[in-house]
């Protein structure tokens, strides 16, 4: 650390370098922190969360009971102890609430005044944050698994929607209508994702084990289909050709720079693809438990020097190094399956929601005890320590008693 600082002071290093080092360090210290709580509003499992990109202050969460909650993550109290309060809620009492489980929520990338939610009640609603009323409702014939707004799009306002129908639908926010259909999948589309690098590039994952990458300007079909064997016919059996996984593909995630694409499937595998060529990079992440029949929301860190992947794995969140595939740690805290996790790039915090109704905040725990402080405390003696927290004391009964 000191080395980085001196190098920065001397102007030897790029400022980005220090930033990355610190971010990485913080990510590695992610822990369940008793100082940070998230209000327990949901009475049912939490399917999806999203943190807005403008300020990084508000977080959306959608539950299996149809409830949508907006949390304020910013801690202005100046104390360590902070509970993220629910700013507003679309509860069951609201007349606009989704009837069934909310599958995806997403902020409008440029403004917190709007967000989009889609649900198993076959609708996708565009909400006005101020009034908490839907400004627009898209209705579909089937359950909506996932939708996504392009985070960088400036020339279009398209929402890609994956439903039970194999056809991927594109809805235009400007006109409020479905303007295009992308055909090619043979089973329900579980996940759709816009590239954060090119605004017309869309990746879709389906239960037919295939992942397709589309250019939405092209009407004729997908750009390419990801193939786990990289076109090596000898390895693939006839039906496994052009498949990304050997099971349902239920998770999609671009890296922050959009150069790589991660997919997860029910074959308990995670794969990293080159998003430009569609080539399987063959990084081995080992077994990533994945039994979800719905979409799995996972995320990639941003701003770290080796990037990390946070992927729900059973009742814990696994942290992998993106390019080496090394399992860094398992974040264990949920008591039931974890469905979604979201990385906060500004504070290197991770929020995860699961079927146990909890949203857990994983906050970097920095080494509190500095050298000087520690020596001070030693001078004070054991009494000082016991004041910290009596619960951390051992209570051995000695033989003399």
């Amino acid at each position, binding site marked *: *650390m*000191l*080395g*980085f600082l001196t190098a920065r002071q001397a102007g030897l290093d790029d400022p980005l370098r220090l930033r990355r*080092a610190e971010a*990485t*360090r913080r*990510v*590695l*210290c992610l822990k*369940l*922190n*008793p100082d940070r709580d998230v209000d*327990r509003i949901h*009475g049912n499992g939490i399917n999806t969360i999203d943190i807005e990109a403008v300020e990084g202050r508000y977080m959306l969460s959608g539950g299996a009971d149809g409830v949508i909650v907006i949390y304020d993550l910013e801690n202005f109290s100046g104390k360590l102890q902070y509970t993220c309060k629910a700013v507003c809620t679309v509860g069951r009492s609201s007349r606009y609430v989704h009837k069934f489980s909310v599958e995806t929520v997403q902020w409008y990338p440029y403004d917190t005044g709007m967000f989009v939610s889609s649900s198993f009640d076959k609708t996708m609603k565009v909400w006005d944050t101020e009034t908490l009323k839907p400004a627009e409702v898209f209705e579909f014939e089937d359950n909506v698994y996932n939708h996504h707004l392009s985070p960088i799009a400036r020339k279009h306002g398209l929402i890609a929607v994956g439903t039970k129908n194999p056809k991927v639908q594109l809805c235009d926010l400007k006109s409020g209508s479905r303007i295009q259909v992308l055909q090619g999948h043979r089973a329900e589309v579980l996940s759709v994702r816009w590239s954060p690098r090119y605004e017309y590039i869309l990746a879709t994952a389906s239960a037919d084990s295939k992942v397709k990458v589309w250019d939405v300007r092209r009407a004729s079909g997908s750009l390419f289909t990801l193939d786990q064997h990289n076109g090596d016919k000898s390895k693939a059996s006839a039906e496994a050709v052009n498949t990304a996984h050997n099971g349902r593909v239920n998770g999609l995630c671009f890296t922050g720079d959009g150069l790589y694409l991660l997919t997860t499937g029910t074959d308990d595998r995670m794969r990293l693809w080159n998003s430009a060529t569609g080539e399987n990079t063959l990084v081995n992440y080992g077994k990533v438990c994945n039994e979800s029949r719905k979409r799995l929301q996972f995320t990639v860190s941003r701003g770290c*020097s*080796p990037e990390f992947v946070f992927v729900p794995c059973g*009742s814990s969140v696994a942290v992998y*190094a993106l390019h080496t595939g*090394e399992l*860094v*740690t398992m974040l*264990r*805290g*949920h*008591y*039931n399956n974890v469905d979604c996790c979201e990385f906060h790039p500004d504070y290197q915090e991770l929020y995860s929601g699961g*079927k*146990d*109704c*909890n949203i*857990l905040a994983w906050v970097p725990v920095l*080494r509190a*005890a500095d*050298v000087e402080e520690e020596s001070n405390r030693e001078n004070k003696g*054991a009494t000082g320590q016991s004041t910290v*927290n009596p*619960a*951390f*004391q*051992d*209570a*051995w*009964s*000695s033989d003399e008693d």
Partner: protein
Amino acid sequence: MTGDGAVSEGQAVGAGGGADHIRTAAAQRGQDEGNQEDLVSNDCIDHVYHSLLSQLNQEHAEIRLSAFQIASELFSRSHHFRTLLVDNFQEFLELTVETDSEQPLPPPKEVARKLRALAIQTVQSWQASYGTAYKKLALGYHFLKQVKKVDFQDAEARTVTERRREEERQRKMQRIYKERVEAATNDMEEAHQDIEATLTEMESCMKLLLPRFDHTDVQTTDSSPSNSQPADELTPDDEQPCCSKDLQDDKKEEKTQGGEERGKKKKDKGGTEEKRDNRENKKAKKKKEKSSEDEEEKKKREMDEGQSEGGEEEEEDDDDEESSEEEEEESRDLFIRNSGLISHSYNLDLDLSSGLHVRETEDNEAVVSTVIDLDKLITTKHLPAVQGWIQVFTKAGAEEQLLRRALDLKKSLEAALQKHKELHIDYKTRIRKSLKASSDAEDSDDDDGDFDEVPEKEGYEPHIPEHLRAEYGLDPSPSTSAAPIPKKTPSKRPAPPARPPSSSSSSFPSRRLKRLIEQEEEDPTCAAATLRLLRHKVHLPAEPAQSSSTSSGPSSSQSTSDQNAVDAPVVPFGLDLYYWGQEQPNAGKIIKSTSQHQFWVPINTEEEVENKELLAESKSRYITFPGTFIPVSHHCRAPLGNGQLCQRQDRLKCPFHGPIIPRDEEGRPSRQEDRRREEKEERRKLEAQPDLWDAEMMRDIELATGADLGSESLGKKKKGKKKKKYPNLSDLKQNANTARSRLEKKVFNKGSMRRVADAMSKSDRRKHEKFSNQFNYALN
């Protein structure tokens, strides 16, 4: 950890080795904790934690429970253990609270329930004391509370679905209980009268047997029991009669000859003692040495007591008379001697502690048999019924009144039984008496004879099973009482023309029976009425019929033709009888027609052929001679396990004890070679089937002595079982030993499955063979 740590950390970060950093952080934390003067190092706790977790993973609720208890102890002690456990709290909850429905707690069920309840309680207490410090613990607590909906106040610690199921079950059970209670109440209403009647009957019978049932003061009124029992004799101890008599004599003596005591004593001293036995002698001597005042007092007291007892007076008077007669008859000396001996505080040992004895006599026989019947009725019918009701009421929690009533009933029934027991009715004497009575009561025999004379007829059963006899209005077999009776042949089969008098039934039942029969004969629906009709019809020709049926064999006596006619066998009519005494005209002749044609026959072609066999056949007659049935009169008498003798009556061979051989009183074979053979058999049986208990005992002995006695070979099968290894764990496989599982083992074992499959495929193939030429069958 100083700047070095920071530098190394920075390097690590730079190199991208995040894990390193974590490790160093952990090491530091460990050091911090190590600095505290811990008695137990963290390594030990780590080790304990891991071994505990592995124990918690065992598929046995008892193991888990024990592990959990250890864990909860350690949890309250060590911070390090707490962190370790809380880190893995999900799994911990899964293993103890059953949070994962796909991982239910292992059997045994009760222990699992206990474990669950304990775990939930403990988690709550942990949450109270450590919840703020350990975030995950709090999360787990909330998870249990809100997602699993565990009610921490609920002692049963059940989830919602469990509770609902439980409620449903309870409701069902309540309904069932209600029905049962209603049924029991109805039953009780119905049976109450009956029981009351039985009780009153019993009570009155008791009163008849023993008018004053309660024990009177035994010390003072030695004669009172006999006095108070007009119908029965109390059977005191053997020597009691003489003692009491002596005493009474003594008393009388005191009364009549109060003043002569000195003289008597002197004479007593004078030495006629040699006629008395030694013991009494000594006693008397000892007593005599006492002061005379004492004696006088005692006598007075005795006299007073004697007079105070009103019931005694008579008897004593009798005694007085008797004794006065004696006085006149016997010599004065003897008398004095008697009285002298006893008068000095003769220690009276009246042993009535064994309770009352009622000896059955002819007079009270009816009452006693009624009592026996009632007793049996109570023990076999009423008491079990009442107990059943009580069980139902207590289980269902019925209203108190019902329960109390049932309990009262039970109490009174038991009291009645107890009373009956205390009576000590002597049944054996009853049998003896009854036999005696029946032997001299001729009329009863006649009654039975009447029955015997009735010949066999259709619709009339010669054999009436014991349990149906009462129903048929017949003498209930007198062997109902517990004591075995000398063999009796109550059978109504016509075989015994003259029955031995000793084998007839008792006089009372037959007398009563007669009355009963008379009553029943009035009733046309009764079997007895039919019987009477039959008797009337058949009475006159009965005698010859009887004799003819009895003497089925060729009678040896050829005295008179009458007798002959009587003895002649009745045979079915046949050709031989038709031509009796004549030549059969065309016996054995067959007309043989050469042409087989029915109508188109040539004339005079018939031809007679003589057949020797046919001829013989028409003249001969088959007479079957089965012989007479002789009932088996001997018992097997082989010793049984319970100390009794085998009562089977097989003709030649007992199915359990082999050929029937003569045996002595204790069931031992009376012949030497039999005994030897039996011993050999016994030994062989022992060797073939070594007792498991024996093997165990041997092993115990071996353990104690350290010597090898060869139990290894005896109980090899038992060894190596898990149960041996952990004797305190309940065996999980034990409850697999149900009727169903045993059947399954038989039905689904490989051999039988294969057999069945073979049979089925064979039948299938046969079908194919049958229709093999038809292609449409061949296809399927």
